[in-house]
């Protein structure tokens, strides 16, 4: 019975999967971006990849994320002209990198740097359930001091 059920359900499942994959590729770039930023807590659109950024501004954002040990989804706009223009239109922001938290456009390199320096980034991350490594380190230091 169990195997029968599996056999009859599986084709349906794999069909819907195929359909949804195809529609994802065909969907206008705006919808694709919408899905990306809504399905991930933190998304970075950048030039290059985190291990090899191809722009100083993108690299700065990667370094900030690394300092806070933020898990994030990254997309290389140099790999797709559609994405490169699409993301600018989507957020109405003319430059790369672009950072999204919880589906909301937060800013580019300058804003991320300022949020990092002011401590605001730690707060924003907290709101989406991400604890910054800098906060963890700070707390450990305080505990050490109390001993």
């Amino acid at each position, binding site marked *: 019975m169990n195997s029968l059920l599996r056999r009859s359900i599986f084709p349906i499942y794999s069909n819907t999967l195929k359909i949804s994959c195809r529609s994802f590729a065909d969907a206008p770039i705006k919808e694709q971006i919408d899905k990306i930023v809504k399905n991930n807590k933190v998304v970075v659109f950048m030039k290059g990849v985190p291990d090899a950024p191809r722009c100083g*501004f*993108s690299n700065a954002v990667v370094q900030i994320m690394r300092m806070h040990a933020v898990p994030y989804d990254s997309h290389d706009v140099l790999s797709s002209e559609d994405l490169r223009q699409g993301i600018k239109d989507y957020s109405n922001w003319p430059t790369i990198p672009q950072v999204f938290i919880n589906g909301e456009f937060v800013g580019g390199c300058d804003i991320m740097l300022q949020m990092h320096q002011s401590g605001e980034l730690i707060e924003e991350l907290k709101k989406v359930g991400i604890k910054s490594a800098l906060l963890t380190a700070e707390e450990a230091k305080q505990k050490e001091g109390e001993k």
Partner: protein
Amino acid sequence: MSIILKPGVGNIHRNMATIAGVIESKIRNKLISQLEAQHLDVINESYMHNVPKGAETHFKVVVVSPKFEGLPLIKRHRLINEILKDELENGVHALSIMAKTPQQWETSDQVVESSPSCRGGFGK
């Protein structure tokens, strides 16, 4: 006497022109007139990037304006992006922004840090 002086003045102007490019001047004028900027730096950082000499592709602007009062950072940046829309669509490829209110500027150390160095990702 004034005739003798004139060539000298002209030279200064010509030198200025090679330093401050056409786009740089446009950016300066737009920001001063539309934001009533009390302090303004327009820094051409293109030389730090993989572009031809004298290019005007990468800029940093430091704008101190009373119009930023009460606006969060992102709205200040959007305001500047909007004012410089034409430039950003036509050749200006990177724009780093420092936007402060006069009061913030007064109490800050007024140091403008230079932008991160290029990593060769200049595509088009």
